[in-house]
């Protein structure tokens, strides 16, 4: 397997990069996990190191897991409840990126966030050694707690793992594979875990391949060549746009196109003119030609236009489009007349707008298109592009006074709140911080209350929560705090000897332990 460059630390409780998240699934386990399968089957959470799905008690605040017996780490050590307790403490001790956002509701987490080194989570994660049970107590019900437990940050590691970022030194895991060596300037290698015995084909099937080598340092173009020449089996990066036609015609059986739980969008700063005016926001939403925009990304095969925040396949997804020529379930065409009229009504005509894009080709092209469009409907627009490395932090920080930008969001786990609450919730708007994913600075008390309710309902009734999220999605778009553009697809190019390629929707990556090579 080949990738452009290494993806950082291999500590599963710290790493937050898609590259290694793709591979942790076959190496580490949590109490629960997303089913190792392709398509919608992967969206189901199944028991992993726990024998069964947990009993939820105390109005959604207490989860009781019974640990499986006989599971060993790759260093031969038996898995016990101690390892589970220590792993949860470690999330805070190493200041895991999501410790303060995902796991903050565990009893004792507050103290752990304040003083990570002394974290005990007393009363939060309680082990009953004799009964092999783990009880997790929350301060408030969390409808997505199981999703969060299924993520790599909640991997169960040996209790004696050091309480700091291990960097390049592999930590033993419980999956069918174990890391063998890692050099960020060369390769990451992993092979079979000699102590692994399959306990659940759904959660952790035994793999087919004996050894994996992920080499770093090839450009996307070179990765394509390496696969064509049978020098590699899978490339991690997306093939460059210039090679897509060649791949599509010469190697159609080796190209996989999979819709992702993600969208490209334009965050509009609702606290700065002109987008502090609802009509100005609506005007732009009406004016955009989404068909033109997806062409910048590679056309209809690679992206689907969207008018809403939730992507297809997500809980609560109901297709709708408010800002188009004939509003209905789908985007039809732009409505420039209406846009111009809304700009007139808003009284913002002639105002200056600066669009901030990344320096990548797609973003820049979308930015240039927006510039001409904004000028056309009555604004005075210009465009600035900055390095893709600092763009995302820059547009989040309110001190930089960004009015409109082009960016994208990929779900961490398949829950509606990972889009609606993270991108537009009051809690994720932090003024003056580079970590403020609510880039629009949007905070609507009523909608926030409804999101909180949907989260609470989700604990007991996912279907009812889905209905609530669908309505929130619509009402959010009435206010246009951001303009959705399209849902992208992942293009994976594999060698001709690869078989059983399955793309997990839940983790936005291929379920690699299911694949085999001839």
């Amino acid at each position: 397997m080949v990738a452009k460059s290494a993806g950082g630390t291999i500590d599963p409780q710290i790493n937050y990069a898609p590259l290694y998240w793709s591979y942790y699934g076959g190496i580490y386990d949590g109490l629960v996990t997303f089913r190792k399968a392709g398509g919608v089957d992967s969206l189901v959470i199944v028991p992993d190191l726990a024998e069964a799905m947990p009993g939820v008690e105390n109005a959604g605040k207490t989860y009781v897991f019974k640990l499986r017996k006989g599971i060993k780490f790759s260093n031969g050590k038996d898995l016990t409840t101690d390892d589970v307790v220590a792993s949860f403490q470690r999330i805070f001790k190493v200041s895991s990126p999501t410790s303060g956002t995902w796991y903050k509701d565990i009893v004792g987490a507050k103290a752990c966030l304040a003083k990570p080194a002394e974290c005990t989570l007393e009363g939060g994660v309680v082990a009953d050694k004799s009964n092999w049970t783990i009880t997790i107590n929350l301060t408030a019900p969390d409808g997505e707690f199981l999703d969060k437990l299924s993520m790599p940050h909640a991997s169960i590691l040996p209790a004696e793992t050091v309480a700091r970022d291990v960097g390049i030194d592999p930590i033993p895991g419980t999956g069918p594979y174990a890391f063998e060596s890692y050099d960020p300037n060369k390769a990451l290698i992993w092979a079979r875990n000699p102590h692994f015995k399959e306990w659940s084909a759904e959660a952790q099937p035994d793999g087919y391949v004996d050894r994996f080598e992920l080499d770093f340092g090839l450009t996307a173009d070179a990765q394509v060549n390496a696969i064509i020449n049978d020098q590699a089996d899978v490339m991690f990066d997306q093939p460059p746009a210039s090679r897509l036609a060649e791949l599509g015609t010469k190697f159609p059986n080796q190209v996989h196109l999979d819709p992702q739980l993600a969208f490209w969008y334009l965050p509009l700063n609702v606290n700065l003119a002109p987008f502090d005016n609802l009509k100005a926001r609506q005007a732009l939403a009406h004016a955009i030609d989404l068909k033109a925009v997806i062409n910048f990304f590679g056309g209809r095969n690679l992206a689907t236009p969207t008018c809403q925040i939730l992507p297809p396949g997500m809980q609560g997804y109901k297709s709708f489009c408010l800002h188009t020529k004939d509003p209905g379930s789908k985007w039809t065409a732009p409505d420039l007349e209406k846009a111009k009229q809304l700009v007139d009504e808003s009284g913002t005509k002639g105002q200056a707008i600066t669009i901030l894009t990344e320096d990548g080709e797609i973003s820049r092209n979308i930015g240039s298109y927006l510039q001409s469009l904004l000028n056309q409907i009555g604004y005075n627009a210009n465009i600035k592009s900055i390095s893709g490395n600092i763009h995302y932090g820059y547009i989040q920080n309110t001190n930089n006074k960004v009015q409109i930008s082009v960016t994208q969001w990929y779900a961490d786990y398949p829950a509606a709140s990972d889009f609606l609450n993270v991108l537009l919730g009051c809690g994720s708007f932090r003024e003056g911080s580079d970590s403020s994913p609510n880039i629009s600075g949007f905070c609507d008390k009523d909608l926030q209350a409804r999101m909180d309710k949907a989260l609470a309902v989700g604990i007991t009734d996912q279907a009812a929560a889905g209905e609530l999220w669908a309505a929130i999605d619509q009402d959010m778009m009435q206010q246009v705090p951001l303009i959705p553009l399209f849902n992208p697809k992942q293009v994976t190019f594999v060698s001709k000897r690869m078989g059983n390629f399955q793309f997990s929707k839940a983790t936005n990556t291929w379920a690699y332990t299911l694949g085999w090579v001839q």
Partner: protein
Amino acid sequence: MLAALLQRVAQMLFVMFGISVLVFLIFFATPGSDPAARIAGKNAAPETLIAVRHDFGLDRPLPVQYAVMMKKLFVTQDLVSFVNRGLKVVPAIVEAAPVTLSLVFGAALFWVIGGLAVGILAAAYRDGIVDRVLMILSLTGVAIPVFWLGEMTNLVSQNRLHDTLLFSWVPALGYVPLWVDPVGWFKALLLPWLTLSLGFIGIYGRVLRANIVETYQEDFIRTARAKGISETRVLLRHALRMSLVPFVTMFGLDFGALVGGGALVTEVIFGLNGVGKLTYDSLQSLDLPVIMASVMYASFFVVLANAVVDMTYAVLDPRTRSH
């Protein structure tokens, strides 16, 4: 001699200090580059940012941070990357250096031999057809950007003609250590060597030709000819030797810069994980510790190469020895 050496070392330290302060300040003055937010990951809570800031010493005053970073880089050598946390920067550079050295030494061999051949032949047959053809070819070599040439080489050898007899020997992109497989090492590096050296052969050939032609006007050449020495001997023993001074100056600067990471584009295109590639990756992710270390490494080689060049002058040109 010792004084000159000490002066060189002092110069190097001064250059390195200046560069380190500049790089450090540029990093912290860039909006949106707050390392804490980048290290912590997307949507990190404010508490997490504080913890990470403290962990990495980012909450301390800038001069202290600078001093700590320099101490970790030079004294304790345990400076770790912000991105590939746990990756120690100094060993990473030490490990990447053989790749860069292999690439640059090989390319240097090609371009010195090539440059000499082109320059001498063109000067020997100056204003004739050989001279013209060589000069046109050289100019073409200089004009072709290395990134284009590299991509084209890959396109032909890895893609279009890979399955033909001509290029079926070309291995997958990447580096093979010399002591693991010498033949593999040679195969993996041959095309990168040629790619990197082509432009240099052009420049060096043209410069050398111009210098030889100029030297022919000098009195000592006239004297040599008057003594009845053969034309070939005049060219090789007298004119060439003097014309090598600018050649060596250029070579020192170019070679130092390339060993210092200047072969970045070639390394990236051919998947060679050398210092240039390391620098490229660290710039892509604004990984300050690695950027700092690779810049220090680069400046060290540039200053070192200059010192060597100065010493070579004395060997080549007897007139500089008295200075």
